[in-house]
């Protein structure tokens, strides 16, 4: 459990900086602070206490207390703590000071809060970020009085390529040539060198949060959460379930926690194998792509055997899991893992023996450690840039506290480092599954008597293959009052600007892919069709 001394330090810090309320429950610290004092507290947390920034969640609480609220979620990973800082604001003049100059990682989520809930931020430039440029002013989708099925008639148009008098523009997208997902990059090049980057995303924002808050029930949302991402969906459904379980203080049977961890690791293996294949393909090494995906197929079959489906496993419910692992399946898992491990080691050896491949990975797409820290990047991107953070170790969830594993960290911050992190993680996952299968406890897999009281707040994170997922929930009657999702790519895309600047154009596709982007997780609302010229929405260099 968390050291009492650390909590007391936080209490002292918060109260000395003018916090009006302080509470602590489990691994989460709650602080309420006035608007005027928010910036001071954020600076102390982010730079003095060396916390990471997870996300912020704006909430329309007019039905509870008549205010709009903004929750900034910080993470003190070294001490295994979440720190939730709440600020109130009036609905008729919702202004909160921006912290994006102190905490660069908060840039995107502030813009999201402005677009979707209508919270204004003083001290920064605000612009349309997620919603289409033609979206009516003053209509905020996540306000409680906006119906979920309201669709303003918007003119349909495509993505327009910007023109620049100085440098040539190379558009990448709106459909990624390798990852088959909609996003839009504009690369400004001079000769072979990329000098600037613009990103336009949120083409597939599907309104998942709003849908869950208005017309689904607690147990149905597990299946919706799984559909946030096509590759790491199970992480989202685990994260949702465990956040609700945390809010409602539901005791989940140990066996269910073990099964969750095992399936999560199966998903990590197949996701990394997919990425390694795609990376090889982008480098023109299609042999590697074919073999990586051949090995992945064994894992996909295993996933189907364990859960009933190759993807979107659908075995998670609040309170436990729906499918047990028997002896026969246990044997099959171990057999498959042995095959996968053997083949994977051989393949990686061979791949890294191709000199051209290594040359193109080494020293390209560099993200220095300081920049990575400023932007609070997550997952293999963080670990490839020397940041030693992994939610599985720092805030253990499911059954990870029963397994021993090493968190791979590489310091170079280039594409090769990110590849090596993923290679090590595949082998780590195989070892975790073996350890957990060995200790799999007997017993039930589903908690009895699930009761979810109203008005509870909880946040929790899950280490997905791409980095940490963060879910934040305020419980309501029969469904969440507010459900905020932060997918890992959301935190990693801003780092692309730093990786790409000064790169050769030929290395751009690989560098973009090197964060293993998942655009559909990052986007969550409406189909965006707008014809205006888009502004730069990647952060400035700090």
């Amino acid at each position, binding site marked *: 459990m968390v050291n009492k001394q650390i909590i007391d330090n936080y209490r002292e810090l918060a109260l000395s900086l003018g916090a009006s309320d302080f509470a602590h429950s489990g691994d989460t610290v709650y602080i309420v602070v006035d608007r005027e004092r928010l910036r001071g507290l954020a600076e102390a947390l982010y730079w003095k206490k060396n916390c990471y920034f997870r996300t912020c969640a704006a909430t329309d609480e007019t039905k509870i207390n008549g205010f709009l609220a903004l929750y900034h979620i910080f993470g003190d990973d070294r001490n295994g703590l979440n720190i939730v800082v709440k600020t109130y604001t009036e609905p008729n003049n919702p202004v909160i000071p921006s912290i994006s100059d102190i905490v660069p990682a908060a840039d995107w989520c502030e813009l999201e809060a402005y677009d979707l809930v209508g919270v204004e931020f003083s001290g920064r430039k605000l612009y349309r970020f997620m919603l289409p440029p033609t979206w009516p002013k003053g209509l905020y989708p996540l306000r409680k009085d906006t119906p979920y099925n309201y669709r303003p008639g918007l003119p349909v148009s495509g993505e327009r390529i910007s023109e620049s008098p100085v440098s040539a523009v190379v558009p990448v997208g709106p459909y990624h040539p390798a990852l088959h997902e909609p996003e839009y990059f504009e690369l400004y090049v001079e000769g072979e060198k990329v000098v600037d980057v613009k990103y336009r995303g949120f083409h597939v924002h599907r309104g998942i949060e709003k849908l869950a808050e208005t017309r689904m029930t607690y*147990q149905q949302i597990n*299946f919706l959460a799984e559909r946030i991402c096509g590759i790491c969906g199970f992480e989202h459904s685990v994260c949702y379930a465990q956040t609700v379980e945390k809010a409602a203080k539901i005791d989940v049977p140990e066996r269910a926690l073990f099964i969750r961890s095992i399936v999560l690791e199966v998903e990590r293996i197949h996701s990394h194998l997919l990425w390694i294949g795609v990376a090889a393909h982008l480098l023109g090494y299609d042999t590697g792509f074919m073999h990586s995906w051949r090995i992945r197929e064994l894992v996909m079959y295993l996933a*189907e055997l364990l859960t009933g*489906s190759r993807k979107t496993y659908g075995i998670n419910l609040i309170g436990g899991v729906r499918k047990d692992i028997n002896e026969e399946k246990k044997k099959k898992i171990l057999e498959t893992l042995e095959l996968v491990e053997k083949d994977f080691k051989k393949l990686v050896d*061979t*791949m890294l*023996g191709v000199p051209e491949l290594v040359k193109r990975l080494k020293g390209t797409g560099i993200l220095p450690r300081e920049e990575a820290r400023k932007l609070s990047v997550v997952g293999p991107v963080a670990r490839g840039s020397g940041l030693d953070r992994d939610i599985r170790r720092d805030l253990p969830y499911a059954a990870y506290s029963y397994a021993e594993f090493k968190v791979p960290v590489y310091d170079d911050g280039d594409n090769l480092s990110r590849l090596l992190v993923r290679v090590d993680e595949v082998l780590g996952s195989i070892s975790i599954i073996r350890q957990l299968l060995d200790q799999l406890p007997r017993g039930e897999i589903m908690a009895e008597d699930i009761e979810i009281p109203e008005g509870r707040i909880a946040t929790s994170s899950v280490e997905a293959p791409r980095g940490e997922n963060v879910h934040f929930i305020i419980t309501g009657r029969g469904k969440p009052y507010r459900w905020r999702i932060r997918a890992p790519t959301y935190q990693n895309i801003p780092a692309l600007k730093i990786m790409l600047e000064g790169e050769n154009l030929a290395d751009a596709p690989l560098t973009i892919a090197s964060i293993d982007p998942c655009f559909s997780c990052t986007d969550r609302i409406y189909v965006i069709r707008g014809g205006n010229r888009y502004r730069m929405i990647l952060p400035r260099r700090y």
Partner: protein
Amino acid sequence: MMGKLGFVKILVIAAEAGRVTRKYPYEPPLVSSDFRGKIEIDETKCIGCGSCVLACPPNALVMSDEGEGYRVLKYFVGRCIFCWRCIDVCPVDAIKGTREFELATDNVEDLDEAVIHKRASCTECNGLYSTVKQKAYVMEKAPITENYVDKCPECRRNKLLRAFEKRRGGESLE
């Protein structure tokens, strides 16, 4: 260990792996024993209680009252996510999971299935409520009289209120 020509080892790996593609659809598909496919509803067992409709995340199962005294449970495969939550919650085990997944068709009506239930009519006001089968299920499972079940919820409530009035000797509430 890796010489300059180390990457040629891929030829060995490829030879060991052999051909992995299958001649599907000329061969049986590669789905495991635990695969979740389309569901089948046994209309003889279904009582039209609507549990599955409440549990279904994507609204693939919906229920509506149609025509003169019919309640219809509709299953549209096009929306189904094959989660089998309906199977979990069905009180009479009327829904069965299959491993069927080859559901493509050129006629969208092939994707629709329906179970038609006759609704029960109230012996007092002749109004429609529940379904005939659900009524029978309740009588079988719970020790209550036909006299009670044969009335619609509204008449039942009124009857109860009247009983209270008699006992208390008070005046009508209306």
